[in-house]
């Protein structure tokens, strides 16, 4: 908390008492962006846009900078992420809708699935969770406990079974039992592991085999604490499974998750959900403006 305030106060000071956006202000701005994990390339892109506006409008003063900066970043996000959803909506009108959840180890996949199932269930959808992480110790139990909490259906074949088979059968289960949505959990895997990424592609293919057109959503979960490696993650998972939406977790901590800006900028994959805690209610639908506002706080 202290660090957060100190940081923005510093930007505040660089801005205060100045009537023009000058080099020093831009430098401070660059620091804020870097410290939020936005990354060098995207930071430079943002700074250049601000510079261009400063050059164009010579009377631009520092009080306007605040709005312009937020606007520019929201615009940057909007280029790839044009619609913000207001609510939890299933990715398709087809039933069952199939969501496949992927990501590196420990980012919050299973927890996000539990929270998301809860939201869908609350909106009257019948949900089944498929336990296709058959590898990590007690992964099936963990998802089973979430299913119980949510009060939704649960499909598992136990540990050390073929994850592609579990995924396939989860879809079949969803069809047979008139579920409106199936959410399939997968084992965490580092994007650099060739065999594990191949396995993931196989899981996805078996979902398609069970239901043409599925999975309707491939949700890549990213930990907001992650730095620039998240970009490599996005690249590799998108290649292996055609990721079409992102969830950003652990935003209740001090990490600001700025890397998500770079990722939306470079991969044209919209952020759909954010995780803000470990509890069942701690999921929110992503909103560009709110995210950018939280990135900067309100001190400046």
């Amino acid at each position: 908390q202290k660090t957060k305030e100190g940081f923005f106060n510093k930007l505040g000071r660089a801005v205060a008492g100045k009537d023009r956006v000058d080099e020093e202000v831009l430098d401070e701005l660059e620091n804020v962006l870097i410290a939020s994990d936005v990354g060098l390339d995207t930071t430079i892109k943002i700074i250049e846009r601000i510079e261009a506006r400063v050059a164009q409008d010579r009377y631009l003063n520092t009080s306007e900078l605040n709005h312009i900066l937020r606007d520019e970043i929201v615009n940057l996000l909007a280029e790839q992420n044009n619609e913000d959803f207001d609510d939890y909506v299933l990715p398709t009108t087809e039933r069952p809708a199939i969501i496949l959840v992927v990501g590196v180890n420990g980012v919050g996949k299973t927890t996000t699935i539990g929270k998301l199932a809860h939201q869908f269930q609350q909106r009257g959808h019948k949900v089944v969770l498929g336990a296709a992480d058959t590898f990590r110790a007690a992964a099936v139990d963990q998802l089973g406990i979430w299913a119980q909490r949510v009060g939704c259906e649960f499909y598992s074949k136990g540990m050390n079974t073929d994850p592609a088979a579990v995924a396939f059968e989860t879809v079949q289960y969803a069809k047979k039992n008139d579920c409106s949505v199936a959410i399939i959990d997968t084992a965490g895997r580092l994007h650099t592991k060739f065999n594990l990424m191949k396995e993931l592609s196989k899981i996805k293919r078996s979902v398609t085999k069970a239901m043409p057109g599925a999975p309707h959503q491939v949700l890549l979960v990213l930990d907001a604490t992650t730095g620039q490696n998240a970009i490599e993650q996005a690249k590799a998972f998108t290649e292996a499974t055609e990721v079409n939406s992102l969830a950003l977790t652990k935003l209740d901590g001090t990490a600001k998750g700025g890397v998500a800006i770079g990722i939306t900028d470079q991969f044209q994959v919209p952020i759909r959900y954010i995780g803000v805690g470990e509890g069942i209610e701690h999921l929110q639908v992503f909103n560009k403006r709110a995210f950018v506002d939280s990135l900067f706080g309100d001190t400046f």
Partner: protein
Amino acid sequence: MFDNLSDRLEGAFKSLTGDNKITEINVATSLKEIRRALVAADVNYKIAKEFTDKVKEKALGTENVLKAVKPGQLMVKIVQDELTELMGGQSVGINAKGDPAVILIAGLQGSGKTTFSGKLAKFLQEKRKQKVLLTACDVYRPAAIDQLTVLAGQVGADIYKEPENKNPVEIALKAIEHARQKKYDVVIVDTAGRLSVDEKMMQEISDVRQAISPHETLFVVDSMTGQDAVNTAKVFNDRIDYDGVVLTKLDGDTRGGAALSVKYTVGKPIKFVSTGEKMDALDVFHPDRMAQRILGMGDIISFVERA
């Protein structure tokens, strides 16, 4: 996307000098390149700046760079040496002697604490022939106790657990008592993940630490952590004054700049690196390899997953 730092530095020197004359300006430009490389590797930007200031002093102080035929390479060497020294010179072992020795494991959610607890048990049993008791003090995460139970089974260690008890201080104390009676050499206490801003949870871990006075407290950090590493490392250090750091998930392609940030901020040694999900994927820390890795010049093969 990560160019080799050496190439970038050579470029920085060449681009500014039509005639091979090396000036302070080129040194400044190359420092900027180094800073950028560090930030791209997730080193905290303030630390990257302080670090390059130090490098500059060294480079200009010796006047070597100004005279060198290949100033880019010399800069790389200075950076690499400085970084290696900063990362801790040589590796430091853990204190697992006591009656029983108590080791407390703490860190953020999902950083790899439970997995590391299992690995450490295996390590101590095999390398030091110690009898280890794993203790399940994560009373929050769904199936946390089951997870540790499975890992304990995999490494052939015993586990102490109280599924109905929601008080980690009590569980830890009873585990130690149990270990004393049953003549265990080491008790490893796995705890729940927590955020540094979660006051209630930070108080809990500090209470556990106070109650059990561990011989060794280890802070587990995900090597993919970005700029926030500094903040978290500092808050945890203020609250539990840990003895060492465990760097996890180094089997991927992260450059791991967080390692430098943590070391620089709290000055505690990095003791272990975790390089996979399996129970034998544990290494002692090599400062020189880590320095090379952060600079993008590491021998990635040494981190590649074992078969």
